[in-house]
């Protein structure tokens, strides 16, 4: 593991499963890649902006109303709320599985609501998603599931092999690569889903209840994984019921949905940004 971490020339993951502080060279490789893409998602620039977003399914009343917030590149965000409050719906808007009924959504500085349909895939490739129900492809091995985003992006097979093997080790499934999802435990499936979500090094990682199906220990380990990614520059958005979990990530910010409306307990998510020192009403 150590030897690999020092292999800075490769652009692979060099982060062992439980590594809290990523090797500097791996970090450099990561940031180099982000920089080469010419995107500003480090520091405090807004990577996601919602303005008065509303979502209505069919003729029902609005599931989401007047949702406004902005997320900054490199931030770690939790989204909480009662069951049925609209967390999954909000994330769906974020990972472009759904169009809002009204309002403006900006991703990476571009308005994605009015964007022509054929430009959306490019945006989706910059967002990794861990679905609440994993959505692993049942007839593909863990290896092939994890490789999917790279294949979609058209990466050469020789490069894919190195990345996927590294990734499997990273989530502690180095010897289960050829296993079908059905033969994996819930926690193992979850880790495959996470590996798949992050392998293409998305700029935003969206995770819907990623700790819903695992015990407290595994939840803690998954969170460590997200923190490692976050330190590498990925913006993390996690929807969860698990309030104690939120307290475990230092510097994380929280949004709470209440019947489709966003309350902003930390006051940090307001868009446009609220001037410093003003109390949250």
């Amino acid at each position, binding site marked *: 593991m150590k030897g690999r971490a020092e292999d800075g020339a490769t652009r692979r993951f060099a982060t062992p499963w439980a590594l809290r502080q990523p090797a500097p060279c791996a970090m450099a490789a990561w940031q180099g890649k982000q920089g080469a893409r010419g995107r500003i998602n480090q520091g405090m620039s807004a990577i996601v902006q919602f303005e008065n977003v509303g979502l209505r399914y069919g003729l029902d009343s609005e599931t989401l109303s007047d949702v406004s917030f902005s997320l900054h590149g490199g931030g770690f965000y939790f989204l909480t709320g009662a069951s049925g409050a609209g967390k999954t719906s909000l994330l769906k808007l974020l990972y472009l599985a759904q169009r809002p009924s009204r309002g403006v959504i900006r991703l990476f500085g571009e308005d994605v609501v009015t964007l022509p349909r054929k430009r959306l895939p490019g*945006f989706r490739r910059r967002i990794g998603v861990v679905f609440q129900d994993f*959505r692993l492809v049942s*007839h593909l091995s863990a290896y092939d599931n994890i490789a999917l985003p790279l*294949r979609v992006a058209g990466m050469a097979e020789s490069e894919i092999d190195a990345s996927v093997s590294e990734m499997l080790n990273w989530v502690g499934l180095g010897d289960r690569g050829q296993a079908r999802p059905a033969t994996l435990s819930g926690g193992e499936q979850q880790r495959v889903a996470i590996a798949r979500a992050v392998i293409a090094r998305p700029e935003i990682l969206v995770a819907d209840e990623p700790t819903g199906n695992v015990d407290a220990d595994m939840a803690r380990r998954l969170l460590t994984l997200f923190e490692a990614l976050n330190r590498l520059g990925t913006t993390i958005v996690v929807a969860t019921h698990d309030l104690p979990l939120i307290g475990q990530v230092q510097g994380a910010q929280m949004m709470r949905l209440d019947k489709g409306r966003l309350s902003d307990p930390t006051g940090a998510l307001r868009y446009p940004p609220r001037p410093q020192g003003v109390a949250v009403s």
Partner: protein
Amino acid sequence: MTGADRRAAAAARHRLLPEGRVAGPMPWVIAIMMFLTVLAAASGLGLAAAVQSVGADLAGRATIQIVEANADRREELSGAAARLLRKSPDVRAVRPVDPATLADQIRPWLGQDAADGDLPIPALIDVELTPGATAAKVQRLNRVLAALSPRIRVEPHAAFLRPLGSLLTALGSLAAGIVLLMALATAAIVVLAARAAHDSHRGTIDVLHLMGATDVQIARLFQRRIGLDALFGGLLGFVTALLVIILLGTRLAATGSDLLAAISLPWTSWLILALLPIGGVLLSTLAARWTVLRSLGRLL
């Protein structure tokens, strides 16, 4: 990308849809369709070839009949007609039929008496016209010869075969229509199969879609698999139909009939038949692509 890399990528793409046929019984239906299509096309092409070869033989020919009971008068008229014909610019060759030959030919039917001159046999002159505008030339000859005697008649050979020719043409059009309908039905089957395949792999498609796969990338998975299935079915149907055609061909040749022997396929027709399975695969691939793209277009 190296060759090995490309093969690995192709294998990975292949794995994306589960092993086995994605489109259920579609390949077998396509095999049956292709079999019938090739047979219909082959009979259409065979009939067209027959019409053409028989038509080409007869189109430029006519027989002049001099129906005159008086033998001397008949001979006189025959000579005069032949002279007129030789002068006509519409006529390439003039061959008066030897009365003896004619007598020989009708003897089996009319008996020895016919040849002895008791029975008035018309004098015949075979005429070969210059190519083109046969009908107008025949009319012109008719006018010129009628002026000589009302007992001279011009019989264009094409007229004998006209009813048969139009029957053959109708059958040929029917064959072409069948080929067209088969193509439509094949496309419809493929659209249904692609829609079913799309629905049953909905989960995989959604995941790929949300990962940023383009519609074309996803459609390509299906069009490739359905194209391969169509290739399998198409070749099976094609080869079976070919065996049947060759078998029928030997049977036709065995009849020894001139008319039936004219039903033979020139190499261009074989080429057209060979294009049918290729066309089938292309049609299936395009239909699958179109169907999947249309379904994907409904997603965000």
